[in-house]
């Protein structure tokens, strides 16, 4: 395709706007403007593409844009902040799906042309099909797990990774076949089907708490799928934009893996959390004493504390407790208490999950502290309140070399003068290990649903 010079320049402007937009995403102050810049870049690119002389089918294109625009717009306005992980998950899938369809459309177009495929066409098409399919079906499973439609615990079966390898080899064989003798429709359909199966099989063995890694990785793949589609069409703009998304997803994937002290391979193929491990002998269990707290106990403790750190986890998201937590924090501040929030990078189901929920509850972002910025503060803090978090507070990650959590950077909640843990039961977290924090002398266990617990404390604190 011959793209006129003015269009190429306009695509360059759009790509630069994407890059500046992403640069501005590095501080909360400039982020919103950055997003607008990136959106402007996209608008320029869309208009320029409509003006290309090869693009003539305005009816189908504009109807498609209208349908997609309405669906996207309504979804963006109505989605609950607690459902953001699902939304990002399904959007990753659409990115992959779009690229996959472009490659398929190009395949059928070339198949009907007399001059047929060049080697270059065949290679780029089959690669796009593989990446697009894995991104699409993998994201749909991730969406299903986050939405509760698919079991969120890892699904495992014997020789899982061997099967995946066999399937991958079959895919490679089909790809090579399609490069050597292009245009074979049955093999092409089989390639799509088997690649979709691979996406499903790669994501089902990954458990709920590892979702931040999977979502980031699929985010990266959706960008790479766009790149691949760019290679199919020979479109530099697609390649540049896709690479930016690929890099963003890759960076987040690395940050998430580091925050769990696990390799990407372990997350992807380790089926972590599949088996609930039983730690300790029966004798040890007998000696463990838990101090169960009433709402009055917790309220008295909080009422006289000079400093409080809230430690939210996935339990706060599931019980939708963020607004009540923010209300409690405001009440405590009015009584002169110093309140902060400690956010672990992998708390929740996607990168930044807790930050978004607390922002929704009007908590100013300068009260939200990252792991490294707050860990030194715990020992100077009167009360740490853990709301529905578990593994990220487990002290055995620091010192028990045989624990599956060993080496994971944790929030040093156990260093606070007193600890309140709000949790429905003593059940172990995702890693399947017991949390010694619950049995410490300074720890009060308040067995409730997150939101219910905060409501009861709020009732008490108003009478204090």
């Amino acid at each position: 395709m011959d793209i006129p010079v003015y269009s190429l320049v306009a695509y360059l402007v759009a790509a630069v706007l994407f890059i500046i937009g992403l640069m501005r995403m590095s501080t909360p102050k400039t982020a919103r403007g950055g997003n607008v810049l990136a959106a402007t870049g996209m608008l320029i690119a869309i208009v320029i593409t409509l003006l290309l002389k090869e693009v003539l089918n305005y009816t189908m294109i504009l109807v498609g844009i209208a349908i997609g625009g309405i669906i996207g717009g309504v979804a963006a306005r109505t989605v609950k902040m607690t459902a953001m992980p699902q939304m990002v998950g399904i959007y990753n899938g659409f990115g992959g799906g779009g690229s996959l369809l472009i490659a398929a459309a190009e395949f059928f177009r070339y198949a009907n042309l007399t001059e047929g495929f060049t080697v270059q066409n065949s290679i780029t098409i089959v690669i796009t099909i593989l990446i697009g399919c894995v991104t699409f079906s993998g994201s749909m499973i991730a969406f299903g797990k986050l939405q509760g439609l698919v079991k969120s615990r890892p699904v495992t079966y014997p020789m899982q990774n061997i099967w995946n390898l066999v399937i991958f080899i079959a895919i490679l064989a089909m790809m090579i076949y399609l490069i050597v003798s292009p245009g074979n429709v049955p093999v092409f359909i089989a390639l799509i089907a088997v690649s979709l199966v691979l996406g499903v099989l790669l994501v089902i063995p990954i458990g709920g708490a590892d979702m931040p890694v999977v979502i980031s990785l699929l985010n990266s793949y959706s960008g790479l799928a766009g790149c691949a589609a760019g290679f199919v069409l020979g479109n530099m703009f697609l390649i540049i934009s896709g690479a930016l998304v690929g890099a963003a997803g890759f960076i987040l994937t690395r940050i998430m893996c580091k925050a769990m002290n696990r390799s990407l391979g372990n997350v992807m193929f380790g089926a972590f959390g599949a088996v609930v491990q039983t730690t300790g002998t029966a004798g040890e269990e007998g000696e463990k004493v838990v101090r169960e707290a009433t709402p009055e106990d917790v309220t008295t403790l909080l009422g006289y504390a000079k400093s409080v750190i809230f430690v939210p986890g996935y339990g706060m998201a599931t019980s939708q407790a963020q607004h009540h937590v923010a209300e409690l924090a405001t009440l405590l501040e009015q009584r002169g208490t110093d309140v902060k929030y400690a956010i672990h990078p992998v708390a929740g189901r996607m990168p930044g999950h807790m930050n978004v929920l607390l922002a929704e509850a009007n908590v100013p972002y300068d009260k939200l502290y990252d792991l490294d910025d707050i860990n030194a503060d715990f020992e100077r803090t009167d009360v740490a309140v853990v709301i529905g978090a578990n593994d990220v507070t487990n002290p055995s990650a620091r010192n028990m070399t045989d624990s599956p959590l060993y080496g994971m950077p944790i929030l040093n909640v156990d260093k606070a003068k007193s600890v309140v843990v709000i949790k429905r039961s003593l059940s172990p977290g995702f890693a399947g290990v017991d949390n010694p924090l619950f049995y410490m002398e300074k720890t009060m266990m308040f067995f409730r649903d997150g939101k219910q617990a905060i409501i009861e404390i709020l009732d008490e604190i108003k009478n204090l």
Partner: protein
Amino acid sequence: MGQDMVFLLYVFVLAMFAGYEVITKVPPILHTPLMSGANAISGVCLIGAMVVTGPTEVNLSTILGMIAVIMATINVVGGFMVTDRMLAMFKKE
């Protein structure tokens, strides 16, 4: 393989490095908006989908292209709008 292909590979590799350098500094509070913003940018396959849907006849290719246009537009519009909605909530005291 043609030289134009290698040229596109150059562009890809350099863009990955640029992306990596540009994005490394994003603080944890902005991780979710970064992802939804990236979702919107990954909707850039809309451009490709429009080209594929370009010819006026209705055939398998243009129908697949139109479905791709719908998916990509959902990403573009939904991604930018939800990111804006989220970023509007981030306030300093």
